């Protein structure tokens, strides 16, 4: 009994910092409709700035509170600066661009943090009162955790009061519910957006600073927090502060009790709950923002592949087939990777371009394909061609099943759900050790030799990409684009957009799966890191670089991105910052789409 109470309280206290962060994310989304990927970085800055301030202050509680407050204000100021210099310019850009820009900001902040504070974890020395405890039912419980438990509801109530009782809150609600109406009524949205961004960032900073007595400031916290905060915001309902509170409680308790009952599967639990909630309540627990279709965009003509291009492509493939005869082995291996990347991007493009669905978790299919290949080789002793076949088959089937759940959603919700699914796959790959080998992965997935394998890759990617191009040109491809361009119109000429999208989802997944299978053989191994968020972002960047409204875009994008990435990697030590700045510059300089091809009315 006492144990259950203690565990319950522990779950409560560990949910608080997550709630603060997620509340910030959700109010920002409510007003600006920006999904702020850099929110985890603001949390991290809260921890680092808090460390810097608190280590310089006297150790009594009053100074601690002052230091935490100063940290929150400092991070709020950073948030305001971010909003006025960058995000303000992106409110009318497609959602994907906002996501990418904030992802770029995250990369920049990662390297900036490393530069400013160095690589080591920074633990905050705990003053004696922070080590205090109270005795609850014969068990000791940290005093500080009790303080945290009190802070959560306090912030919740303050936020709710702020939203419901003040003029500022009224304006916020007006904007959350109907931006256009609010604009028509002459509300100064710029000022409001800046303020709300500062508020959200301040909350994240507060969340980051408050964990310091328990956890050292470290450079990995941004990504782990942002993924959890996304889960909370989506589960709670985007834009809902109360929902964020409920969802973070749910997750805190889930972790506290999860480790008791499933000590090996703590990671999987969260994402399974998320998927369950969203299947039952697609808007989240308390979500009230309707799932509107993404902003209507007038698109320019989609450039479909012309027959000449096919001949040109054939010639390129023929030339490529000869490269093993003169290219040094390392460059042959780079070429192999580019081919695999091109297939990955082409699959993603089918879904994002003609399909009009943003995937933020395409790494899931890449990873499933890789595991499918490796496992059929290792467990079923399948020869390489069969193992490679297993990849698109397994992935296509899984993607079709998953697609069946998600094609009803659109825009950011769809993107978030794909992200959640990728995280589930990642967690399963990490924790289902007997099947996947856990973090150790599966080794010894080698092809017979690099040159024959290169030909395999060339042949398979060429055929798969050619098939994808045929699909885009086919009647099905036309119907898919129709469903994307105007759903009401597509419905009223007898098309079935959801089915069309589900098939696109499956095809796109199968292509990513095949590229994952090839990559498994390329690397001779499979690891959970194949499913990491970064892999999904790689794909998005390739597609956007190439231009979303042309069929050959993803191929060009894959080559350009792999080249850019390698170049940055080899020449700049702060390559994350360089990549982040490049992304931001691309998004800012081409607000209508990188290839100038995604125009808005």
């Amino acid at each position: 009994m006492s144990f259950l109470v203690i565990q319950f309280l522990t779950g409560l206290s560990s949910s608080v910092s997550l709630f603060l962060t997620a509340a910030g994310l959700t109010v920002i989304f409510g007003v600006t409709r920006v999904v702020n990927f850099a929110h985890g970085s603001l949390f991290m800055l809260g921890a680092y700035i808090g460390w810097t301030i608190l280590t310089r202050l006297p150790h009594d509680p009053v100074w601690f509170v002052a230091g935490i407050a100063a940290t929150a204000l400092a991070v709020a100021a950073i948030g305001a600066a971010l909003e006025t210099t960058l995000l303000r310019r992106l409110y009318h850009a497609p959602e994907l661009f906002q996501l990418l820009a904030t992802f770029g900001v995250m990369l920049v902040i990662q390297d900036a943090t490393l530069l400013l504070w160095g690589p080591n974890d920074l633990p905050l020395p705990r003053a004696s009162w922070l080590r205090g405890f109270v005795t609850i039912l014969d068990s000791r419980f940290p005093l500080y955790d009790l303080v945290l438990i009190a802070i959560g509801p306090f912030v919740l109530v303050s936020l709710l009061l702020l939203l419901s009782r003040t003029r500022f809150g009224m304006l916020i609600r007006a904007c959350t519910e109907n931006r256009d109406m609010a604009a028509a009524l002459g509300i100064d949205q710029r000022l409001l957006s800046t303020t709300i961004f500062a508020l959200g960032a301040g909350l994240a900073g507060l969340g980051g600073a408050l964990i310091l007595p328990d956890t050292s400031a470290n450079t990995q916290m941004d990504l782990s927090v942002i993924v959890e905060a996304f889960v909370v915001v989506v589960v709670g309902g985007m834009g809902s502060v109360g929902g964020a509170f409920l969802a973070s409680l749910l997750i805190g308790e889930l972790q506290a009790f999860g480790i008791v009952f499933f000590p090996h599967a703590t990671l999987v639990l969260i994402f399974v709950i998320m998927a369950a909630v969203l299947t039952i309540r697609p808007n989240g627990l308390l979500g009230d923002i309707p799932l509107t279709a993404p902003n209507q965009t007038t698109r320019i003509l989609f450039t479909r592949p012309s027959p000449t291009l096919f001949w040109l492509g054939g010639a390129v493939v023929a030339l490529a087939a000869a490269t093993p005869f003169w290219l040094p082995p390392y460059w042959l291996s780079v070429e192999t990777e580019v081919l695999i990347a091109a297939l990955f991007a082409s699959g993603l493009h089918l879904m994002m371009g003609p399909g009009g669905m943003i995937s933020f978790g395409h790494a899931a299919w890449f990873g499933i394909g890789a595991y499918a290949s490796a496992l059929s080789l290792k467990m079923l002793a399948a020869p390489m061609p069969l193992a490679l076949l297993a990849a698109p088959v397994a992935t296509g089937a899984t993607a079709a099943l998953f697609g069946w759940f998600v094609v009803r959603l659109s825009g950011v919700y769809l993107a978030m759900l794909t992200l959640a699914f990728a995280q589930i796959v990642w967690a399963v790959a990490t924790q289902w050790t007997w099947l996947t080998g856990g973090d150790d992965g599966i080794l010894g997935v080698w092809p017979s030799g690099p040159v024959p394998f290169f030909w395999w890759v060339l042949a398979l990617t060429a055929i798969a990409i050619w098939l994808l191009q045929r699909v885009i040109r086919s009647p099905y491809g036309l119907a898919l684009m129709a469903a994307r361009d105007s759903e009401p119109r597509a419905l009223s000429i007898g098309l079935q957009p959801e089915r069309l999208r589900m098939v696109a989802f499956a095809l796109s997944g199968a292509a990513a799966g095949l590229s994952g299978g090839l990559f498994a053989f390329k690397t001779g191994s499979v690891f959970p890191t194949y499913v990491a968020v970064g892999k999904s972002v790689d794909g998005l960047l390739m597609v956007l670089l190439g231009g979303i409204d042309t069929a050959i875009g993803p191929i060009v994008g894959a080559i350009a991105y792999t080249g850019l990435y390698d170049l940055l990697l080899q020449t700049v030590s702060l390559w994350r910052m360089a990549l982040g700045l490049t992304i931001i510059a691309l998004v800012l300089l081409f607000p209508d789409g990188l290839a100038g091809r995604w125009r808005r009315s």
Partner: protein
Amino acid sequence: MLSRRTLLGTTAVLAAPAIVRAQPAPIRIGEINSYSAIPSFTLPYRNGWQLATDEINARGGVLGRKLEVISRDDAGKPQDTIRLAGELLDEQKVDILAGGYLSNVGLALSDFAAQRKCLYVAGEPLSDALVWEKGNRTCFRLRPSTYMQAAMLVEEAAKLPAKRWVTVAPNYEYGLSTVKWFKALLSAKRPDVEWVGEQWPALGKIDAGATAAALAEAKPDAILNVTFGPDLTNFVRQGNTRGLFENRSVVSVLTGEPEYLEPLGDETPVGWIVTGYPQEQVTTKANQAFIAAYKARFEKVPGMGSVVGYTLIQSIAAGIAKAGALDLDKLVDGFSGATFDSPFGSAAYRSLDHQGTLGTFVGTTALKDGKGTMVDWRYANGADYLPTDQVVKSLRPNAG
């Protein structure tokens, strides 16, 4: 995550004066580690191998050739490790691969090197699989394995009166295999011991409060801790506040290493039985000389990582010298049984399983001037903590 950085030009020969002289081409060692992901260990480690390389080159190198280390950062992502290893072999034409920190990276490198028929010398990865289940002819490993660390600690643990044990370990190869061996070895010595609970936090994601409470709920007499780094700091803080460690024995792997002890600061728990490195307390000539040279160059006291980096290069030099040539068969023969010097004294690579006999220190933690330190320590020689040759042969099915 995305962090990956190629450390161009971190070659040790850069320190040498730029005298253009006809010289035989240097022996190239391709080194990969998770520099940006685990800086607290790998930066002292890099200092260590730089120091060793320069010392060896100052003495005239090996086989009349200088050593050149070409280093890469894989940021802890095993697929990048393999890609970079390919680059080192194919572009940089290195003769030997070395490095690794996490066990999974080590296993991946070993598999790659076997595939490409190249020698791989693992420094830090502790997985037993590296030399046993997945052991292969081309892989050698320097540090005491999880088995050896467990065996060293079990020796002390068996003396404790404790009967009810719980374990907490990161949920991946290193944690799993340490717990497995510790349980097996302790149960063999003390059949009266009961295992009453286990916790497997994901690496880097421990929910310390809940974990500590769950462990306490099992009412154990003793705890085996395998967490390290930031997880350890969180765990110790929650455990201290909640009184988890009071009136209980704790046995903890690697916690005595300066890299992990230092962040604990004045919260370092007293009386834990740990493996580690008591730095300047070790007054052997080898260790004092090493510390002096290290301090002179880097103005810091070396950590365990420094010892590993330093000894890794020393052992490679010894192996090459004994082999007399750089082709794979000669190298394997040369490394098998090669003896080398380390700050801890002389050690060797066993020809039986390619495991190094380098040992480590076993002692208890203590607080001194608000900092953690090791007391009552002794050096445990790696050679003394390995199963019989018969057992090892059966554990190592695939390799000669």
